[in-house]
Every structure is written in C-alpha cells, then in structure tokens.
C-alpha cells in the first residue's frame, strides 16, 4: 500500500525523509544566518552607510544581527544539519537496520524543531525586534527587558531555544537507543564506522551538558517575565551563575557540532585515499577523552568574567590538555593519507580542507586557552577568527563534504563535480579572506560586537582589514549560489548513481540509491571493520563489511 502524500513527505516517520527535512530546514536557516552576516559585515566595513538589501543598521539592530547570526548558525544550522540530518540519515543505514528505534518520536522531534525555527524567525517581526543580548544571553542584560528595549524578541528567543533543545534531546535519545540496540548482527561497537561514534558521542555530550542550562533557562524566563531575581544581584541572585551554567553546556556543545563534522572527514578520507583509517581505536579513545575533558574546561570562557582568579589555572591546564586528543585525531587523519592513492573528488577536497583549516583554528585556541594571554585576547576579533576557523571547517566545510559524498545515496543521483570544484575553490579562498584579517584585527585590540569601529581612534588605521574581511564574506556568500544550483539541478537532472558510486565499504552503500522504505532488502551480516581498503591479500582495493570471507570482491562494481 502506497502511503499518502502527507504521510510520505510531510508527516513522515521514515528516517531518510526526516533527515532531508532537517537538512532543507537547516540550509534555509543558513541562508538567513548568512544574510545577517552580510548585513553586519557591510556595516562594519562602511559604518553608517545604508546596507544594500537591508537599509541603515542602527545600534540595537546591529546587536540583534550578531545575536541572531550566532544563535542561528549554532542551533539552527550546525545542530540540525550535522547532528540531526546526517545522524538521522546515516545511523540506520550504517548500522544496518530499517529505521530508528522510535520513528514517531523522530517525527515529533523534527516538528518540534520546525516550530522552534518558526518562533525564532517570528521574533524578527515582533515589536522591539529580535533578541539583542548576544547569543550567550548573559544576564542581567537579558534578565530585564528594559536593559535592551527588546521584550518579545527575548522571550521568543528563550522559548525557541528551549524547544530546539527538546527536539535535539528527543533526537539524541533516539540515536543512542538505536545504536545501542539495533545494530546488524556482527556489528560490534569497534566495527562501527567512526561517523557513528562521533554522532553518539555528540548525543551523549549534549544530553549530559544541557540539563543545567535548561534549568538556567527556566530561571531566566521567570526573571524576564515575572520579575524574579535569580540572576539579579539586588535580589540576592548572581549573574555569574548563569555564565557557569551556560558554559558548562557551551563547551561540550562545541564538540556536539564539531564531532559529526570530523566524522564526515573520517568517512571520506579512507574512501578517497583507498586506504584504511590509521588508528581507528586511537581515534575513538581520543574522542572519548576529549568528550570527558570537555566537561571540566568550561570556565576558560570566563577567565576575566570576575570568577575567582585561582580557578583560572586549573581550567587553563585542562583546556590546553584538550589539544592532545585532538592532535591525536588530526594526526591520525593525516597519517591515513600516507601511502594512499588519493582521488580528489569534491567531497575529498572539502574533507582535506576541514583538516587544513581546522588546524589553524585549533592552534589559535591555545592562545585563548592560556589564561594570561586571554586577558588580552578575550572578546576581541582574535576570538571571532579563532572560533570561525574551528566551526566553519567543522560545520560548513564538513557539511559540504558530507553532502557531496552522500548525495548519491540521498537522492539517487550524482552531484556535478565541475561545479563542485568551482564551489570548493571559491569557498576556500573567500573563507580565508574573510577570517584571516580578523586575527590581525584581534591583535590590534579590536573588540567584538561593536557596531562602528570608527568610534575608537586607535582602530581607525586597521579599517582596511575590516573592508577586506567584508569583501571576503560577500564573496563567500555569493560562492554558495554554485552549491544551490548544483544541489537542485543534480537532484533532478544529475547522473544516475548506482548503489555504491565511491566503491565504499560501509553498510549504507549496500542499499539501493536512494534506499526504499525499510532500507535493506535483507538484514546485512557484518564480518569486519568499516574501512578495509586495499587489503594486502586481495586484488580488489575494497572489501565491504557485509561480505562473508571467501565471497569478498564478488560484489559487482556499479
């Protein structure tokens, strides 16, 4: 029986449809977030000028723009696309099952997310405009409407974020239960593709870190609406309490959106270099260590926020120690390329770029992680450049890598490689043009979140760098038009993809492209680890996970 249109495409319980819904919603939100970035970048380069396509940017409008840009990119782009979309699409396929453990919960999770997105978008249109307290939402600024003049925008912001958290929690419960309980026969934890490890690590981190912030959000909402004083010193509350709750969540949250991106890299690298991943277990363990450490580093966001100065050193040490597991991870990625046979597909180029650019984000993190150096660098453009160099590769570049890689599986057609190459080149050039100058601005002491750099004389001679950065950001946004064209054109007119266009070994490539309802024609049985490429005892350079010994290599190449 064919399900009705509504059941099939709208209120679907199929994990693949839900994944696509998440992806489309996330990409639309990314367009909005990018547009906001365009508006405030133009304001920063040419302060006071009317921005084409927007109009003049007032100071509170500027604050709202940066607040919403941060909020949207973290919670409505990174999380839905990397965690929810890739997670929903890949988990059942990669572990060889027909669907998530709780398909209806999955649907509820998406619709909760959609409602939260609509609430957030609606907050631009209410009187007073959108929230303008910074994406970190520090009280007291956020605890009383009169401090910013934004009333409904702030309420809606909290409500939307709370719903988004609820949606991601439901998704996380689903992911974890599915991976723990529904793996195909023979698929032990250490035969899971690394992407699955990254997704479940991210879900665990999210689930255990978000609780205190949800409690904090309840308190903040009461402070705003009822007038209680949980975070107001005159009532006996403490503003720093919220910062602690926020960053106890905030740092693991960075890894929640980072790990799935690194997971994409670990999937694409072996396929495109025809070589098994280097140090599978080392990568798994370093991810777990980094995840554990992420719970004891949160105060590094608060070195100069008035916390007890004696706390800085312990938190600084734990922070800098995080560089070790990530170094293990990245070196393993690089070592995977050693003596490989590298094919430069678009997905591979994006994955390599993730490593190359993330390295710069990683090493500059040391500057911020050192408590003393952070006295100077905190809240400057150096921090802005640093976290864009970590999050842009891990979120946006990895997202593109993942889409170019799994698009054939999602839609049954290949994306255009020529357009993909052009998209890649322009994206990388303009990304660096946007954010490299910001390191220099940070060194010069240009602090964040000011609408007009010309308010301060000492910043005047660096204004050229602001202009450069803005030109880069405009180019970066325009370059994405190529991706949009490629995405939609390939969806309908791309070259038909077979089951396994990349000759990859993991289970998702066993299914038809796109997989039908129920995914697998028969439950696959897994005989080996995920990345058996170019094994020494075989002519073929790949050996799928599901083929029994003796039958390896019998699968026809599509």
């Amino acid at each position, binding site marked *: 029986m064919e399900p009705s249109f509504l059941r099939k495409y709208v209120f679907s319980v199929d994990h693949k449809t839900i994944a696509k819904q998440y992806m489309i919603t996330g990409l639309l939100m990314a367009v909005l977030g990018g547009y906001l970035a365009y508006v405030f970048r133009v304001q920063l380069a040419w302060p006071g000028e009317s921005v084409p396509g927007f109009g003049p940017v007032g*100071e*509170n409008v500027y*604050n709202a723009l940066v607040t919403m840009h941060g909020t949207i990119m973290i919670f409505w782009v990174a999380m839905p696309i990397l965690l929810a979309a890739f997670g929903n699409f890949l988990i059942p396929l990669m572990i060889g099952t027909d669907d998530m453990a709780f398909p209806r919960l999955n649907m509820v999770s998406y619709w909760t997310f959609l409602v939260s997105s609509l609430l957030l978008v609606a907050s631009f249109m209410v009187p007073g405009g959108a929230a*303008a307290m910074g994406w970190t939402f*520090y009280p*007291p*600024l956020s605890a009383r409407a009169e401090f*910013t003049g934004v009333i409904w925008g702030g309420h809606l912001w909290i409500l939307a974020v709370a719903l988004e958290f609820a949606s991601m929690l439901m998704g996380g419960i689903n992911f974890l239960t599915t991976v723990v309980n529904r793996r195909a026969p023979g698929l032990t934890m250490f035969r899971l593709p690394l992407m699955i490890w990254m997704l479940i690590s991210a879900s665990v981190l999210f689930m255990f870190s978000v609780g205190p912030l949800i409690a904090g959000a309840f308190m903040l909402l009461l402070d705003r609406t009822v007038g209680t004083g949980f975070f107001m010193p*005159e009532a006996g509350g403490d*503003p720093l309490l919220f910062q602690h709750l926020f960053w106890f969540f905030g740092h693991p949250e960075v890894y929640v959106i980072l790990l799935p991106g690194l997971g994409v890299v670990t999937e694409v690298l072996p396929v495109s270099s025809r*070589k*098994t991943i*280097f*140090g*599978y*277990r*080392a990568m798994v363990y370093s991810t777990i260590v980094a995840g554990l450490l992420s719970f004891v580093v949160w105060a590094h966001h608060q070195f*100069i*926020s*008035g916390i007890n*100065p004696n706390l*800085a*050193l312990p938190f*600084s*040490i734990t922070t*800098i120690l995080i*560089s*070790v597991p990530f*170094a*293990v991870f990245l*070196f*393993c990625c*690089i*070592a995977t*390329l050693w*003596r*490989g*046979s*590298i094919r430069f597909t678009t997905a591979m180029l994006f994955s390599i770029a993730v490593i190359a650019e993330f*390295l*710069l984000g990683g*090493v*500059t993190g*040391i500057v911020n992680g*050192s*408590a*003393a150096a952070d*006295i*100077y660098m*905190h*809240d*400057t453009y150096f921090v802005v450049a640093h976290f864009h160099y970590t999050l842009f590769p891990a979120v946006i570049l990895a997202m593109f890598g993942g889409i170019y890689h799994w698009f054939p599986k999602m839609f049954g057609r290949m994306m255009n490689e020529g357009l993909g190459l052009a998209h890649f080149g322009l994206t990388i050039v303009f990304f660096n043009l946007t954010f490299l100058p910001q390191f*220099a601005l940070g*060194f010069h*002491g240009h*602090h964040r*979140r000011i609408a007009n750099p010309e*308010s301060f004389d*000492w910043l005047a001679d660096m204004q050229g760098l602001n202009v450069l950065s803005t030109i880069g950001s405009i180019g970066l946004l325009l370059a994405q038009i190529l991706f949009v064209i490629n995405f939609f054109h390939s969806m309908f007119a791309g070259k038909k993809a077979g089951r396994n266009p990349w000759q990859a070994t993991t289970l998702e490539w066993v299914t038809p492209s796109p997989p039908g309802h129920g995914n697998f024609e028969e439950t696959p049985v897994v005989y080996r680890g995920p990345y058996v490429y*170019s094994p020494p005892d075989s002519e073929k350079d790949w050996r799928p996970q599901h083929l029994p010994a003796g039958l390896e290599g019998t699968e026809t190449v599509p």
Partner: protein
Amino acid sequence: MLSWLPENVSSYGSDMDSLLRLILYIVGVWFVLAEVVLIGFLVVYRKKPGKRAAWVPGSNLKQLSWVLLPCVVILGLDLAIEAAGAPVWHTIKQTLPDPDLTVRVSGKQFAWDFTHPGEDGQLDTDDDIKSEFDLYVPVDSVVQFELVSEDVIHSFWLPHLRLKQDVVPGRSIKGWFEVTKEGIYPIACAELCGIGHTKMGARLHVQSLEEHRIWVQSQEPLDEFWEE
C-alpha cells in the same frame, strides 16, 4: 603578527607580549609543520596508475607511535606554555601590590564613571573627585582600581595596558596597573552591554607626578558631600 599590537605602556605589558610571542612561535611551527606534511602527502600520494595504497591500520603501538610521539611533545609544549603563562596571570590578576593611588571605576549603560581620591588619598571622603569619561593617573605609579557596575555586565578594556576585566553587578572586583609612559589612552567596554555598547568608551590620562598633583588640587570636591 605582534607588530599589530598597539603600543605597550604598562609595567606588565611586555611580559604579556613575550608570552604571546612564545605561544605564537610554538603553535606557528606546529601549524606549518602539520600543513606541510598534509600537503606533501596530498602531492606525493595522489592517484597514480598502477600504484595501489598500502595497508597501514595503525593498530599497533609501533605504527601509532608516529602519531603519539608528536602528541607527547605537544603535551610537553602545552605544559611549557602553561608554565610561561602562570606567572603573567599571577602578576596581573592574583596579586595586588601596595597602591600609590586607588580609584573606583563604575560601569553603567553607557559610560564609565571614575572616582578619584582627593588630596587625602582616600576614597569615600569629602574631597573625592568624580568624573565621567576621564580617568587621571600618575605615571610609574601602582594604581589599584575597584570595579563596580550599576546595571549590567561591562568589561574594562585598556588595549595599550594589556588589561581587561569584566565588571559584574553585585561584585566589587579589584585589580591594578602601572603605566610607564605619559599620554592619553583609550578605555573601551568589551562586553556587550546594550544599545550604546559601541560608543561606551573613556580616556585614560597618564600624567607626570607633578601634573597629577596639580590636577588633584585644582579639582572641585564633590557637592553632595559638602551638604552633609
């Protein structure tokens, strides 16, 4: 990159600059090294006809040591960076030398209020000198400041002094600086504090001891205290 730093005029600023230099050298070397290796691999091991990839799973310690040994070095360098940073942090944030002058800095939306002691050198007395936007301190003297906020969180930011400290309502946070060169330096607010955040700035006037004494004498004491 260090040439982009604004001129340093504080006693501890040069320590900060050397720390930044040290960190940049260390991470710079590693960054370049990693990128060179990465790009080298990409070039050397690109797909060539008849050449197939090797089987290197990295599952034993011998192979893994290629990755783990550099990481041990990184761990050592991390600790070296911490060791270099700890004294700087200690100087700026964990010590309070005996002050030659104590001032109170009060952040509010969207201005800085400064309270200087009068001729008696004490705060909260009749001859306190208040000023908005202008902080006057003598050169080569230890200035202790007490940060308070009247409304939201601000951040007391003096780039030329390499000093930044958030100002939190409900807390009174103490710190210190010593300026080594006369002149006028910008003060900004580095924490988003509302609509006027962009323009929330002030000036630090660093005067010679003699000029500062004359300035203190020439100020009118506070009116409100006369009436008491």
